[in-house]
């Protein structure tokens, strides 16, 4: 085995992944424990939180703004599930390298572990929140079909996309701490550009936005998820290809950038 400081071949990379799989598990376990330590309801919050948010948003939007969306609670929950996962995972990843600085300075660990772990942690959370979606579907007697069972596929697209974006953000954040403040503003804008609380038709009728809203990767991820869970449709081949394309593109960009920058992290943290 050669030193970790050397360039490694693919087989060794896989070997090191197997070696660090236990670390990934432990880190995810730690995040879960720390997040819910001393809260009475613990992990139940992952289910309760989206439910309560949904109640607030539904109350506001069915009385104040009045969009015409059928089954608004399901519409909102499905959209926010994917959106919140990507935002939570990437925001947590943003600071992950810096937060792990005490570790990175003392032990050799492949650094991609940290953003990857935050994304997987977010993914676990999303699976719990999926219980909330199921509960609402049952309570409202919303009709679903077998396509519902395809829900992990769009989730996986979102996961790959989130990992790619996380690699970019976490690497850049080491150099530019402004990113945290910028990203907060960015995600707010992102939320309003994505049809989560309003119908998609709204975007189609806007003069300028209608040309560009499909460039938003989140739009495709959310639409794909909704179509299987809510609209009882198998996503078209085109829809699938778009989702796979943007996720893989993001992942490749993330990997390349991260690899280029990672050796110098230690000088800046």
């Amino acid at each position, binding site marked *: *085995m*050669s*030193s*970790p*400081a*050397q360039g490694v071949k693919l087989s060794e990379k896989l070997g090191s992944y197997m*070696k*660090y799989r*236990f*670390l990934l*598990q*432990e*880190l995810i*376990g*730690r995040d879960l*424990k*720390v997040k819910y*330590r001393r809260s009475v309801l613990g992990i139940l919050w992952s289910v309760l939180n989206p439910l309560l948010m949904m109640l607030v948003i539904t109350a506001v939007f069915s009385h104040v703004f009045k969009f015409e969306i059928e089954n608004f609670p399901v519409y909102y929950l499905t959209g926010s599930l994917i959106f919140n996962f990507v935002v939570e995972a990437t925001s947590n990843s943003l600071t992950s390298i810096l937060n792990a600085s*005490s*570790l*990175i*300075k*003392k*032990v*050799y*660990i492949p650094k991609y572990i940290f953003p990857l772990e935050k994304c997987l942690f977010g993914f676990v959370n999303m699976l719990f929140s999926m219980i909330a979606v199921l509960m609402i579907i049952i309570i409202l007697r919303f009709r679903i079909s077998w396509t519902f069972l395809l829900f992990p596929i769009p989730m996986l697209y979102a996961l790959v996309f989130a990992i790619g974006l996380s690699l970019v953000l976490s690497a850049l954040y080491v*150099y*530019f*701490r*402004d*990113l945290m403040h910028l990203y907060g503003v960015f995600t707010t804008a992102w939320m309003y550009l994505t049809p989560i609380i309003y119908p998609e038709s709204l975007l189609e009728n806007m003069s300028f936005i209608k040309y560009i809203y499909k460039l938003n990767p989140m739009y495709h991820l959310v639409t794909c998820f909704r179509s299987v869970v809510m609209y009882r449709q198998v996503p078209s081949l085109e829809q699938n290809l778009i989702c796979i394309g943007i996720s893989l593109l993001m992942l490749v960009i993330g990997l390349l950038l991260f690899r280029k920058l990672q*050796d110098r992290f*230690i*000088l800046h943290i």
Partner: protein
Amino acid sequence: MANEFAIKVENVSMCFNMSKERLDSLKEYFIKLMRRQLNFTEFYALKDVSFEIPCGQVCGIVGLNGSGKSTLLKVISGILKPTVGKATTIGSISPLIELGAGFDMELTARENIFLNGAVLGYSKKMMEDKFDEIIEFAELQDFVDVVIKNFSSGMVARLGFAIATITKPDILIVDEILAVGDFLFQQKCERRIHEMMAGGTTVVIVSHSIDQIERLCQRVIWLEKGRIRMDGPVEPVCNAYKGL
């Protein structure tokens, strides 16, 4: 092992850019870039350092503050990537660079043992097997399920040492850590390092305590301002160093 060396350091130089002010924000960076004020002063923490440590040797590194000892250890452990040259190591490395790095203060001793074991690249099964041994060595039987933010610093250090030395690594890297804990625990640590040495582990020790170096090592490398000033058997090097 077929290889005669455990650690091979070839022409390693480590250069840090010391900017006069740290640029941590995008705005600052662009302003400086525009004004062409992005000047860095280069600082070499290590300059053209080469040596080989054969398997099983115990090698001490001495030098004044800022002579590059810790940087060298970090290069060997793979934490820092050298600017020039390369460091090759053969076998598993256990770096004891700071005890308890990677502990999460919000978790209990039990949870931290597994977390830290994972950080060091151990498997889950192994940690389960060795769990009692770790607790026993660290003398923390009564505190297994206590959150470690409530631990004293000595307890944290004991736990860190116990976890890091639970396996017999091929290479052990020790940075000034034997200065922690009370003298009983220090003796215990030294005994454990002796056991490892007897088992054929290659050890690199950085210490300001010349006594300790003389007691443990077979060879000493003296660093001065990032260069090797002297390299050889313990007695001549230590005497020369003490004669500073």
